[in-house]
């Protein structure tokens, strides 16, 4: 009989992950009891879960979740369109890339959330600053991954396109973008998480709705257990968004070889 090694077993994570989770919750619970931690500092897991259940059955909480979701998605889509377009433009004109490099780097090292107050001055407390922030954070990784993907096209495949007298447009559409697609999707996977960060931070500062706003308002009223519940809700939202992009990969990059031939 073939021996299945433990580290290769498919069921292993299904068994171990719930056990680890349970152990963590138990340790949390025990620590709160043993040291008598104030519920303002660290509530026990049970009230947190109860608050989360309450959140999940509250229409108001779902409308906040929907606001955060919508802001993140809008910003992310904006970042995707602009980021891919910018990546393509930089790949077409290497000189432009060279000349704009200092500005790109300066913008990249800038903590972009520092701009949120400025966005509020420009656009008020509405959806504007939220979408703009959640667009600015993922823009750079999407742009750079697009550029990297196009740069990675092997010379041999470029030669093939040249031998067919492909136009610049055909080269882009038939070779460079299809080749860069897995790179771009990787940028999107990084980007969707950053977009959510952007939305939540914008809601901290300027929001009148959304989970970020809700979280700050709970802190201000010392409802720590509710704050933890909102963090769980954000985690759920992040998972859904990330799963959406991962599904996009399966849709766009379906039949490709694990290693390129």
């Amino acid at each position, binding site marked *: 009989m073939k021996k299945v090694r433990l580290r290769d077993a498919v069921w292993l994570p299904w068994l171990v992950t719930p056990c680890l989770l349970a152990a963590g919750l138990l340790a949390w619970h025990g620590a709160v009891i043993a040291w008598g931690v104030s519920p303002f500092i660290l509530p026990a897991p049970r009230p947190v879960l109860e608050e989360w259940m309450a959140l999940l059955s509250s229409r108001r909480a779902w409308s906040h979740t929907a606001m955060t979701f919508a802001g993140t998605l809008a910003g992310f889509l904006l970042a995707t369109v602009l980021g891919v377009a910018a990546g393509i433009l930089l790949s077409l004109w290497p000189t432009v890339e060279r000349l704009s490099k200092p500005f790109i780097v300066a913008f990249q090292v800038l903590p972009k959330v520092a701009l949120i107050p400025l966005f509020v001055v420009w656009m008020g407390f509405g959806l504007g600053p939220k979408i703009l922030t959640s667009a600015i954070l993922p823009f750079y990784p999407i742009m750079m991954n697009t550029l990297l993907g196009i740069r990675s096209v092997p010379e041999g495949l470029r030669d093939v396109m*040249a*031998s*067919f*007298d*492909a136009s610049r447009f055909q080269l882009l559409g038939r070779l460079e973008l299809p080749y860069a697609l897995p790179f771009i999707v990787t940028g999107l996977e990084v980007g969707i998480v950053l977009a959510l960060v952007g939305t939540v931070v914008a809601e901290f500062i300027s929001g009148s709705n959304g989970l970020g706003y809700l979280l700050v308002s709970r802190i201000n009223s010392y409802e720590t257990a509710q704050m933890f519940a909102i963090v769980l809700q954000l985690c759920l939202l992040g998972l859904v968004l990330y799963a959406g992009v991962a599904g996009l990969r399966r849709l766009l990059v379906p*039949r*490709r*070889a694990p290693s*390129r031939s």
Partner: protein
Amino acid sequence: MTGIGGARSNSAVSGSSERPALIALTGVGKTFDVGDGTAPALLPSSLSIADGEFIVFLGPSGCGKSTLLRMISGLLEPSVGAIDIAGSPLWFRGRCRADLRSRLGLVFQDASLFPWLTVEENVRLPLDLRGRMPRGGRLSSARAMLAQVGAADIGTRMPHEISGGMRQRVAIARALSYDPDVLLMDEPFAALDAISRESLNLELQTLWLTTGKTIVLVTHSMAEAVFLADRIVLFSPGPGRIDSVIEVGFPRPRTLDLTYSPEFQGMVRDLHERLAGLMGQS
């Protein structure tokens, strides 16, 4: 050098046969910029290739044979000299003329298929790009090409699902899809195992005999050169140049039995000695 048919020095190489030259190279050379100087990759060379000929470029690495093929392919502009296809210059003001390039079909060493396209879509790609044929015609044409290279039943497979030999067949079908006059092949079978290589050599000969295409094939295998070529163009390294052109007189179609004959083996040995001598000089 008595074993080798008509070896001639480079200076005498010109219109070798009665047939008109399809590809005429006049003093074609290439130098690459290296750091602050230039390095010659190929000294000015002249050669005339007749319509329907099977020419093999043979030589060690760094002898300029692939460089010359890339220049004939329109992928690399010559530093000096002129390349004429059917009497018209291939290069014009630094650009390769598209109408002439469409008469050339290229096959690369590593098949260079697009991994996200099926075999059929790969073969159809040049037709799609040139857009001179209705859609349905492109597909049936692609299928016919695949059948011609013995890859009829793998049209819906992905490139990574088929063997290296099959990938090269597909690459040949793709190059043939727009019916070029010339097939330019850069070490097409170098990465294949000996058996696949043999059968592809045989099939390439059959393809050449039935279609009447002109073929220029680059290789560093002496046996492959003798088996396939009407004429072998022998390259010498350091700096790269054409050393000589050797006529191969064996009748067609050539069979695997021929490769075991003393005449064939003798010619391979002569080539071997000659190449070894050339490499010793450099």
